[in-house]
């Protein structure tokens, strides 16, 4: 990995990235929670949110981002997002409906209220999982270091990229 020192010396990049990153994160949250009224949803929101963090990492170094979101945390969040999705489905089963039948989530009101609740919950799961996955992919790329014999250090499921953080 080329050290990001030259990028760090570029004031325009640093200022713009610092200004843009929070806006992108906010926009990601907007797309996430407005997804049931307008265009958007968990997948897009997750990608946008992760992109905001990755812009930060590209200008200030992956190490700076790792201090906020560690590699292990991204893996945990990936799993947690999927589990949230599945848990909504299983909860619907416990409330007497079929798997993923969101109407069962709100048995008191007939109509679409339960569907609404269910969609918000599962899209949140999708958003978390996608954001974490994109960041994990980014970490995997950043962690690759060419070695003397041309082999990369990270075999599949092998060592942590940038093993210091785990």
């Amino acid at each position, binding site marked *: 990995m080329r050290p990001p020192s030259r990028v760090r010396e570029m004031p325009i990049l640093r200022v713009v990235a610092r200004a843009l990153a929070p806006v992108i994160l906010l926009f990601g949250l907007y797309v996430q929670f407005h997804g049931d009224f307008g265009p958007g949803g968990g997948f897009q929101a997750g990608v946008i949110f992760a992109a905001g963090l990755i812009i930060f990492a590209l200008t200030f170094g992956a190490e700076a981002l790792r201090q906020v979101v560690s590699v292990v945390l991204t893996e945990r969040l990936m799993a947690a997002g999927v589990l949230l999705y599945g848990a909504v489905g299983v909860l619907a089963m416990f409330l007497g409906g*079929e798997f993923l039948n969101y109407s069962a989530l709100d048995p008191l009101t007939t109509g679409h209220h339960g569907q609404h609740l269910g969609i918000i919950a599962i899209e949140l799961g999708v958003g978390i999982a996608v954001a974490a996955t994109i960041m994990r992919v980014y970490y995997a790329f950043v962690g690759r270091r060419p070695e003397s014999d041309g082999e990369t250090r990270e075999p599949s499921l092998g060592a942590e990229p940038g093993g210091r953080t785990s």
Partner: protein
Amino acid sequence: MIEKILVLEVVLPLLAAPVCVLVRHPRFCRFFSLGIVAICFWIAVALLFEVRGGGVVSYQLGGWQPPLGIEYRVSTVNAYLLALVTAMALVVLSFDSRGGPPRVPEQRRHLYYAVFLLCIAGLLGIAITGDAFNIFVFLEISSLASYILVSLGGHRRAVMSAFYYLVMGTIGGVFFMLGVGLLYQETGTLNLRDIAARLEPSLDDRGTVLALALLVVGISIKLAVFPLHHWLPNAYSFAPPKVSAFLAATATKVSFYLLAMVLFTIFGAPFVFGELRLQAVLLPLSILAMFLASGAAIFQTDLRRLLAYSSVAQVGYMTLGLSTANATGLAGGLVHLFNHAVMKGGLFLVVACLLYRVGSVHIDALAGIGRRMPLTAAALVIGGLSLIGVPGTVGFVSKWYLVSGVLERGWTAAAVLILLSSLLALVYVGKVVEAVYFRKPAEIQPIDQVREAPLGMLAPAWVLAAAAVFFGLTTNWTYGVAREAAELLLAGGI
């Protein structure tokens, strides 16, 4: 009660995988995955008892009505598959491989179990679902998981063979997807029963014939039908031994179910075997697989490659049963799913025992090992006899019904060829047995210190070896279910 929790068969392993990733504790993940698979096995057996005799259990995901919503639909055919996959997963996962695959360090081992669970969930999903697109999704889940599992083998070539498997498997998946897309264009629905009801296949309808061709080729790659089998020997011989055992016992079996379901349920036997005469292609390919793959197995010097080539030959027996398109032959093919899973799964577990103690499964390295590891070698012999088809083992049961089905169809030459190909199996099994029992140990590799495999490894291997004998003597359960499934498929139902 069972129809309310049917969906858990897929949901449990699917959600257990992220739980493993969250917990990150290898010992917990090992026993947790074993427990989850045990529950799945119980559900599968309960389903099988529920649907035997022509029953059907249906489940609507999310409460959406079936042709629009996704429907899980279980009859004898897929309940049989579910029981087979979960039983094999249970035995293989209970195999104590002492530290998991070689290239996965301790702190990443939880991911290995997560991927294993995803593979199981994908295979179960293919078998249980009644929705064409859903099949594709589960096909990809199980395939992606199995590419990862194969790449974890100890040898550096494991990664290369996993990549080759990935390329071939993805081509197969694309073909399948194109076929499903054409069917959707023809019928406007993705529900399998709805497709079958709306489709009126005829030779003049190019779209339908093309859809059938794409589906058959796509599934044939995944099933490793003879000229498309090239990914299999490398994938099976470089994967971690436990993974080889699991994939050999389940992955091709589920693909076979998929092929049978497409041919008999969606397109119907009268069109496929009456008008189109698919047997004119399938029968020669099956016989070529039996001979060429068995012939290739004879010349292998590595036990795993030998078994892998033998698997290609065994797929030939299954597709031969399929191409007879009568109840006896098809039941022979279906019963061979279970029988081959039992014997090949057992043999690959024996390979895992040998690898653990001897460090190599090169035939020369195994010389004289029968005296050092008598129980392991005995399980190897039982599995080998079953591959040949000796009476009293499951291999005999399959070949008996296959030959009966072929004779019923009037293909006397094919029946003779089945028996002749068994002689080839005799040669390659004999070669291994000769080395293990009668040859002197090679001097370069002293085996004096080699001891019998530990109980945690030996017990699962022997469970499958014992099953190979038990179901070779009692055929009521296996053949009974397979026969019922075959009649159901021929009648066009699932």
